[in-house]
Every structure is written in structure tokens, then in C-alpha cells.
């Protein structure tokens, strides 16, 4: 995409040749962690300050922070999966539909009966398996069918949502397995279970992307698939794995959404694809692949969620929210770029 238009001067470049090791390490830290995401963090902080100023009494409360986190949790898990797919040079438009299908399948009468008789783990397993299976189909179509990811996952989007409608007969399926709702709706050490799940998924995602051979290969496949192939990486198999991972994340998100809404429905997860891609891209992952950051994605999700929260707290009209949202996104990105550039000089 045309971010490549930037002149060579502006590409994020790196530390000096002769920096002593200590400075180099801290510089590396700056670059990889805080540094690269500095602009995003600042944008988030500014947003929070606006929140405190305009709705201080309610915004800065612990309960509100938890609300924001709970809202961020579901789309956050989806976005982590999306980060992998996009970093690996693909895209997944079917995430929302997969969430819907998994939620519906996991809340059919049969599954719920099984869960009620034995354990809610059956519902969870169903959701995960459905998500991963859809992801597998996506991956096979892309890697072996050689269908461009956009079209393959668009087809999955249509098919999965249709299937969800058929299975649920377009009814909202209410969850009657109380143990399920109690567990996932509950809290641990004062933090909602959903938020824990989000944190775990994000942490696991970070480790996998940055600390494992799988992650390293993901960057290679997304950065230059031909080079990766010639370097001996099983590019096709890896691509399949990435889509399965995304599907799995959708399965997890489905469980979370089921707990939040106590329902499974074919209308769940609408437009998640846009939300997730937006969070991933604003976080700094390249749409063309080869560069991706989980931390950025998480902050991206938080920015969008906080934005909604601040808007609602201020009782803004939906239309005005829309316009303001557009403007704020632009300002946030410009701000981030300025900071990224200056932190490099």
C-alpha cells in the first residue's frame, strides 16, 4: 500500500553504529517497546485526559476502567488473531462471521444439553473447534487454493453467517447453562474473567510473535514470501496455521461474547472485521505484511474502546460521534508519526 510513498528519510531508522552496549540496549528497548508505540500511548493518554476533564467523576473510576477493558476484551482477542494473519501477509474478513457461527454452534440445544449434563467445557470446546475449523478452510483456500485472502475470507464471511442463520433459525439462543455464565461472567482478584482471558491471549500472542520460531517465520512469510520459501520455510503450511490461529481467536471471542450477552446469535460480531483491522493497522502493523506488533494492536483496541466510552459519557449524538471519531483518528495517527520520527533523531 502506498505508505511506501514516504521518502527514504522518514523510514524508521536505527541507532548509531558506535553506540556503547548499554545505550544500545536501552535504545533497542525504546525502539521495540515504548518507543515505537510512543505516539499511540500518547494518543491514548490524551484521550484519557479528555475523558477525565469532560467526565471526570465517572471516567476515572475503577468500575469505568473495567467497563472499558471488558468492552475491549472481545474485539481485542479477535484483533490479536488478526495481527498474526496480517503480519503474515494476509487478511481475514470473516472474523465476525466466525464469531457468530461459533457462538451459535456452541449454544445449540444439543450442546447446551451436553454442557448442562456434564460440564460447560463442552460449549467452550465447540466454539473453539468451530472457529479453528473455519480458519482451517480459510487457510487451505488461501495457501493451497491460491485464492487471494480478501476473496477467500469474503466467501467465508458470507458462508459462515449464512450457516449461523440456518443453525439458529435466526433466533437468539439464550444460554441456560448457569455454570458457564457464572464462570465467564465472574471475576478473579477483582478483575473480570473476560479481561483475564484478553490479557492471557494478548500475552501469549506477544510471546509467540516475538519469541518463537513460529513468530519469526510469520514475519518472514509476510515480509517476502518468496524469500521465505527459498529460505526453507514451509510457507503454505505456515499460512494455514495463521488462519487457524485467527479462527481459534474468534472461537475464544465467541465464548467471551456468549458470556457477556448470555446468548449465541447469528448477528454477533457484525463488522468485527473492520474494527479488528482498524485496531491492528492503527497499532502499527503493516497491511502489506511483514511488520506487526501485538502491543500496538492492544493499544489500538483500547483507543477505539476508550473513544466510544468517552463519547457515551459525554452524551454526544451518534452523528457528532462519527464526525469526531474520524477527526480523532486522523489526529492520533499524525501525532504518532510526529513522535515516532522525533524519537528516532
Amino acid at each position, binding site marked *: 500500500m502506498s505508505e511506501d510513498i514516504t521518502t527514504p528519510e522518514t523510514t524508521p531508522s536505527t541507532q548509531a553504529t558506535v553506540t556503547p552496549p548499554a545505550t544500545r540496549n536501552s535504545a533497542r528497548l525504546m525502539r521495540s517497546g515504548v518507543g515505537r508505540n510512543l505516539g499511540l500511548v500518547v494518543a491514548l493518554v490524551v484521550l484519557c485526559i479528555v475523558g477525565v476533564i469532560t*467526565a471526570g*467523576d*465517572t471516567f476515572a*473510576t475503577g*468500575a*469505568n476502567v473495567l*467497563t472499558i477493558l*471488558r*468492552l475491549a476484551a472481545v474485539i481485542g482477542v479477535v484483533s490479536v488473531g488478526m495481527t498474526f494473519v496480517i503480519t503474515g501477509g494476509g487478511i481475514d474478513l470473516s472474523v465476525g462471521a466466525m464469531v457468530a457461527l461459533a457462538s451459535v454452534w456452541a449454544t445449540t440445544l444439543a450442546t447446551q444439553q451436553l454442557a448442562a449434563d456434564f460440564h460447560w467445557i463442552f460449549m467452550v470446546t465447540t466454539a473453539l473447534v468451530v472457529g479453528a475449523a473455519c480458519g482451517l478452510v480459510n487457510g487451505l483456500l488461501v495457501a493451497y487454493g491460491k485464492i487471494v485472502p480478501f476473496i477467500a475470507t469474503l466467501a467465508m464471511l458470507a458462508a459462515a453467517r449464512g450457516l449461523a*442463520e440456518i443453525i439458529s*433459525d*435466526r*433466533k*437468539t439462543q*439464550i444460554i441456560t447453562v448457569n455454570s458457564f455464565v457464572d464462570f465467564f*461472567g465472574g471475576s478473579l482478584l477483582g478483575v473480570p474473567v473476560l479481561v483475564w482471558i484478553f490479557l492471557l491471549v494478548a500475552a501469549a500472542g506477544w510471546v509467540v510473535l516475538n519469541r518463537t520460531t513460529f513468530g519469526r517465520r510469520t514475519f518472514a512469510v509476510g515480509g517476502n514470501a518468496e524469500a521465505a520459501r527459498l529460505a526453507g520455510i514451509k510457507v503454505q503450511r505456515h499460512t494455514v496455521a495463521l488462519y487457524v490461529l485467527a479462527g481459534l481467536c474468534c472461537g475464544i471471542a465467541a465464548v467471551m*461474547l456468549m458470556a*457477556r*450477552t*448470555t*446468548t449465541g*446469535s447469528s*448477528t*454477533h*460480531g*457484525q463488522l468485527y472485521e473492520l474494527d479488528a483491522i482498524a485496531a491492528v493497522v492503527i497499532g502499527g502493523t503493516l497491511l502489506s505484511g511483514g511488520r506487526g506488533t501485538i502491543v500496538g494492536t492492544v493499544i489500538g483496541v483500547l483507543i477505539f474502546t476508550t473513544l*466510544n*466510552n468517552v463519547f*457515551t*459519557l459525554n*452524551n454526544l449524538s*451518534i*452523528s457528532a460521534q462519527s464526525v469526531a471519531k474520524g477527526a480523532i483518528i486522523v489526529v492520533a495517527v499524525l501525532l504518532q508519526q510526529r513522535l515516532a520520527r522525533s524519537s528516532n533523531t
Partner: protein
Amino acid sequence: GNTPKAEENAGNAPANQAAVKNDEPGKKVKIGFSAPAADHGWMGAITKATQAEAKKYSDVELVVAEGTNDVNLQISQVETFINQKVDAIVLLPFDGAALTPVATKAMEAGITVINVDREFDSPFAARTTVLGDNHGMGVSAGTYICDQLKGKKDAVVAEIAGIDSLPLTQDRSKGFKEALADCGLKVNNRVAAEFTVESGEKAAANLLQAAPKIDAIWNHDDDQGVGVMAAIKNSGRKEFFVVGGAGSANVMRDIKSGSSLLKATVIYPSTQGADGIRLARLLVQKKALGDLVEVEVPRTVQLYAPVVTKDNVDQYLPTAFES
């Protein structure tokens, strides 16, 4: 026989006893049906009820087009129906005004058009219009809340609307505001959801943060209401009561149980499409409405928006839709 099959109650109107004579099979009627995308429960229920109604008549053949929120596509669906030379079209337009020209074209082509739920802006675009009462819904909800909060001058009232860009949402909100104003109340907090469970949960979660103390909430749609109630349960708040909208079976069961914060709901019938089918059939077969003396089917049928509470819930539960 052509009488409606024994009703296992798939969310349909109760058998209209007086209409029995009308149910006798007549000339074959081919009806096209088009509605917005079933991206929420009520819309899903509408389509389902319509299909179920058509199945009851051996002389009705129903052609259903894919639900869509793109007026351009919906227009072309109606054009396709015209090309197919259907006898009647039951049309729930995504946007009434936008579908008016093509509906007029269908009427001019001699096809009976039944307009459902969202009104055309020309009387020549439809033979008969079946409407819910959106403004009335808001008024009913507002009046009920006024009654419940009587005397509390500084009561906090919150509103969780549906898709905000739809005229029907605006009508509901307008009626609600007017009714509240009558008893000196106003809408203190308003958020909009998208008629889906998920969006309801999201909107309600944010709303509950925005308003630390609430006395009453009106939620426009019972399907998104499932999410709203989930959010309320999560927050552990109990200081208010909730009034629903549309009237799903779930909600009515909740009302009946009495243990829920949901105290009432305002009905917005999901049988409008089904009524449309019946009317279309009658019109094409040149029959009259059973209980009326009038020999022609009326131009407009506006359905009533009653408030369902614990006291009268049994009366409405059988016809409520399973969202």
C-alpha cells in the same frame, strides 16, 4: 383443506375466526417478499412469520428475496418481481421514500403492493399499508414510565435506542420525549445500539457508567434487550426498572416471572409481514376483510402498540415472537 394448519404457534397471529370463509382456496397467488437484512432479531422474526403464514395457504406461492440494507439492491429485487409477473409484492423497505418509485412502478404494472412497517411517501405506491405505531410506542413507553415514577420530579430516565439513522427510531424517541415532557420528565441519558444483542450489551455497559443513578430505562428493542439485561446483570445495579420494546416472548416470560428488572414492554408486532401476506392474498383474490362490513380491504392498517405488564402478559404471550 386450505384452512390454516393447526397453529403450533410459530409466532403468528391467532386464528382469526371470522376470516374462516376467506381461507377457502381461490385463485393461485404469487407473492414476492423483500425486507432489509435480518441483522437483528425482530427483522428475522418478521421474515420467518411471513414465510410461515404463506405456507398455510395452498394457493399462495411466496418468493423471498435476500434481505438487504442497500436500497439499490432492494429496488432491483422489486424490479425482478415485476419481471417475474408476481401478483403481489409485500415490501418492507429499508427506506420507505427510496423504494417509493419502484413500488409505484409495480403498482402501475398491475401488481398489488402491500407496504409494511416503513411507509412509502406516496399513496400511489401501495394498495394497502400495514404499519406498526412507532410514535405510539414511544408515547406508551413514556406514559408508563411517567405513571411509575409519578411524583419523582428529579427522576433520571435513560433511553437505549435502536439504529439511530432509521426514521422509525426517531419516531419512537420523539414519542417518548413528548410523553415524558407531559409529566415533567426528560431523557437524561441516551445511547443508541443496533438492534442486536451484542450492541445492546455494549451500549448499556457504557450507559451504566455514564449515569451513576437511574430510575427508569426504556430500551427500544427486546432483542437488543437481551444484551442490555446481561450488561445490567454484570453491573449488579438494581435501582431502576426497565421497559422493553417490540415484545419478544423472552421478555414477556421475564415480565411474568416478576423477579426481573424488566417490568413492561411495548409491543411492536412482528406479524406485520404475515398480515401483509394475508392482505395481499385477499386483494388478489378480490375478497374483503372478514370482520369489516366494508367490501374492500382498507388502505391503511395501523397496529396497536399496547403496554404489556405482569397484569396482562398472559394475553400477549401466545403471539409474541421468539427472538
